[in-house]
């Protein structure tokens, strides 16, 4: 009877395998690319082998007994039910094995915790649902968002090679340098995880926690948020690019130039069309996950943009300051689950996305139809 069951299942499984013929069945931890990750890898293999050996011995005994000591083969039950020496032995042997495992584990823990003598420090902040990287002492700060398109996620276009594991702005670090990571979060708990470096550290809002890594080879390394942080928890990957020191220095300069260009845009007068076009990009990157790409929202938690009183109402008071609970106020300061964006988006981005929300997504605001970056700069 069970043979039938096995046959049935193997047929289904066979079909599964055939369907994904050239797939890679990853069976182990990812290839380690830091000293700590190497230690963890070896520690894991050691434990697995010890456990397998114990399994073979213990269950060898059990299956032998099942085979031999059956009533159907005429085995008579003996009635022993105590053996003190045996009990002592099988208490002590596991204890000794455990001590043997604890020694290397302790060494690795001490090494993991040692964040001293770091070459550089990056403060990483988890936000719903993206990461912010702040290079301490370098004046470089940026947000890293998921780069996979909504079309791929909803099966409307072919999924890419790094589906859900790609970002617009990766964290870039020099190879061979000890990077100290300071983790915190803005809203809920997130967890910054980079398996290739043996790093996983929760980001606790209001607290700073430390960890460190040293990439041993150039490359692109990928991880994902590893603490449930709300609906888009599965959509906030972490990408670290380890590059040579020269490339790293050049990258720092590029980032600084980008930030300067962004700030320069604040003083320029923008056209409505440019604001809307730019706003669409900002909206889809930052807002669509809750308010949806078409502006329908997910009520009651995330209100619709289309027809929203906030997006259609007046923004500026008679004194030239923004009104409380106006569109500008909501973007800059947030409310409840809506985060404050003033620290994450620059003036151009905020002005663009506000204009986009007022003039697209089915809206056509007549009161304060657009807003200029210079107005946002003044309002901060």
């Amino acid at each position, binding site marked *: 009877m069970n043979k039938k069951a096995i046959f049935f299942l193997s047929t289904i499984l066979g079909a599964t395998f055939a369907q994904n013929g050239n797939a890679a069945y990853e069976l182990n931890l990812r290839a380690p690319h830091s000293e700590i990750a190497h230690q963890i890898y070896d520690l894991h293999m050691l434990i697995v082998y010890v456990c397998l050996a114990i399994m073979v011995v213990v269950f060898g005994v059990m299956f032998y007994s099942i085979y031999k000591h059956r009533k159907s083969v005429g085995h008579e039950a003996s009635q022993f039910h105590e053996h003190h020496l045996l009990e002592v032995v099988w208490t002590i042997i596991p204890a000794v094995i455990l001590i043997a495992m604890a020694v290397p584990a302790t060494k690795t823990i001490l090494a993991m915790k040692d964040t001293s003598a770091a070459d550089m420090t990056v403060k990483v902040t988890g936000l719903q649902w993206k990461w912010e990287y702040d290079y301490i002492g370098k004046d470089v700060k940026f947000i890293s968002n998921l780069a996979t398109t909504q079309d791929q996620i909803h099966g409307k276009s072919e999924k890419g090679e790094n589906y859900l594991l790609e970002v617009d702005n990766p964290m870039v670090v020099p190879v061979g340098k000890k990077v100290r990571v300071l983790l915190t979060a803005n809203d809920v708990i997130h967890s910054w995880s980079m398996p290739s470096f043996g790093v996983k550290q929760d980001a606790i809002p209001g607290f*700073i926690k430390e960890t460190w890594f040293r990439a041993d080879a150039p490359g692109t390394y990928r991880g994902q948020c590893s603490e449930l942080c709300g609906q888009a928890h599965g959509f906030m990957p972490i990408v670290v690019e380890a590059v040579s020191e020269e490339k790293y220095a050049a990258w720092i300069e590029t980032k600084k130039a980008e930030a300067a260009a962004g700030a320069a845009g604040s003083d320029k007068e923008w056209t409505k069309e440019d604001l809307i076009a730019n706003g669409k990009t900002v909206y889809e990157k930052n807002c669509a996950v809750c308010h949806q790409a078409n502006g329908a929202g997910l009520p009651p938690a995330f209100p619709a943009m289309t027809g929203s009183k906030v997006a259609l109402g007046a923004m500026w008071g008679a004194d030239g300051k923004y009104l409380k609970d106006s569109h500008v106020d909501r973007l800059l300061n947030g409310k409840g689950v809506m985060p404050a964006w003033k620290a994450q988006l620059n003036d151009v981005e905020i002005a663009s996305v506000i204009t986009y929300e007022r003039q697209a997504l089915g809206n056509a605001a007549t009161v304060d139809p657009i807003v200029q970056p210079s107005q946002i700069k003044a309002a901060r």
Partner: protein
Amino acid sequence: MSQSTKSYFLPGPSFWPLIASISLFLLAGGFSMSLNKIAMGTPLMVAGGIALAYLLFGWFKEVIEESVSKHYNKQVDKSFRWGMGFFIFSEVMFFFGFFGALFYARNVSLPWLADAHGLTGAHAVWQNFSAAWPTAGPSLKLEGAMKPWGLPAINTLLLLTSGVTLTWAHWGLMKNKRNQIIIGLALTIALGAAFMYLQYTEYAEAAFTIKSGIYGATFYMLTGFHGLHVTMGTIMLAIILFRVLKGHFDSHDHFGFEAVAWYWHFVDVVWLFLFIFVYWL
């Protein structure tokens, strides 16, 4: 219900468990609604409260009647003792959770919160926060933390005295001295009421609220739950006094009295911990 006292008393079918179920459902459902501003919530909660009061009154009345008509043998009495003992143990663990939170906040999380890991200026999470207790945390202000040697010390004295008067009443019960029982119990109830009045005064005069950060939260949660227990204890003592007046107890058979006394002593001991860890240290 004519169980002979030789064997263990097993009650017949009872409606009380269902009433318990309904009353807690109304309370929990109603509370969920009223917390989320649904108008139906409050009436449901009131209905649940009435059902709960009816349940407690009715069920205890039934048990007291069974006890008075001598349905309970020694073994049943022992069951009640085990049951009450473990109930108090569960209460101890409830307070243990809150004391644990207080301990953790003061000794573990606040020092962490104050550690900026060398971050300054715009990079820092909090500006200039130091972990001195009492505190309302980095972004709130705490006004007027409690001092131990005023009302709280008097309250300690009141509760300790009430433990003595209750024990004195118990001695009276064991020696069948009716006046001693009544005076002892009445004094205990008066001391409990005085404690609650002073506690109320303290709350009314406090400059901080339950919203005043971790200090306000732990202070009001711990003293509030303790106050709730004192209130329940006082009501239970009043019922026991009423039962004494009705002549329900004799010098051998009075577990109802003892159970309430155990409970009262437990509430006393919790207060001592509160006095030391919440007010004093």
